[in-house]
């Protein structure tokens, strides 16, 4: 189906990404990178960002995948399906590897590592219970945020977190009520 989107070169897209601080098409933006990575890319100077992507895309298979994840994270492929042809043969190879069964298995292993890690951390946060300060310390030190918890943790574990550490602060509600009364 024709979306009517205007295609861009990688450079134009990154310019748009950098200037807007998000995908050129905010409505379809679905980040596949962590929020920390996203923040870092936002802060990076344009030249450094391009160099980073190019370096990743011309490196090892694993690095190619990382570059793809980043580009996918910022919505590049989605917005520019045909511009993938502009990539180098090596980059194209890495894209075509997506259809290879081994690649699929490797992806599953990577997902299992990430899912296991986030699940483990989230179970610990739930186990810590009402001590939210320590729960937040765990999340911070283990570099897991709400977005990752929602994406990777077991729904039951995440629900328990939503009712405890991610629950809206009662104090904030009270404060808001007081300020409205004033």
């Amino acid at each position, binding site marked *: 189906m024709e979306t009517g989107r205007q295609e861009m070169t990688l450079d134009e897209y990154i310019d748009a990404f950098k200037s807007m601080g998000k995908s050129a098409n905010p409505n379809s933006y679905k980040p596949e990178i962590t929020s920390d990575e996203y923040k870092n890319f936002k802060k990076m100077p344009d030249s450094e960002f391009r160099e980073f992507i190019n370096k990743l895309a011309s490196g090892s298979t694993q690095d190619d995948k990382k570059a793809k994840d980043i580009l996918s994270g910022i919505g590049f492929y989605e917005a520019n399906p045909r511009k993938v042809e502009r990539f180098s043969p090596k980059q194209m190879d890495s894209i075509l590897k997506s259809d290879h069964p081994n690649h699929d*298995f490797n992806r*599953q*292993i990577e997902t*299992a*590592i*990430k*899912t*296991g*890690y*986030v*699940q*483990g*951390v989230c*179970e*610990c946060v*739930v*186990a*810590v*219970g009402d*001590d939210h300060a*320590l729960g937040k*310390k*765990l999340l911070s*030190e*283990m570099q897991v945020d709400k977005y990752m918890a929602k994406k990777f943790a077991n729904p039951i574990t995440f629900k328990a977190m939503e009712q405890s550490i991610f629950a809206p602060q009662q104090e904030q509600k009270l404060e808001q009520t007081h300020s409205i009364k004033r």
Partner: protein
Amino acid sequence: MSEQEEKTQIKETFLKSRNGAIVRCASIMVDSGRKDLAKQILTTTQIDRSRFEEIKAQNT
């Protein structure tokens, strides 16, 4: 590798990663002077003391 072997490997990878994260979290609690919470974490997540030491040794 058969499909069954792949499934087993994925499951083992998941558990290894989960257990590693739990042991790290428990260690953070110990370092924060909260051995009680470290114990609570290990009990809740069903990792006994010997398993804890084993995983910790693997990760260091």
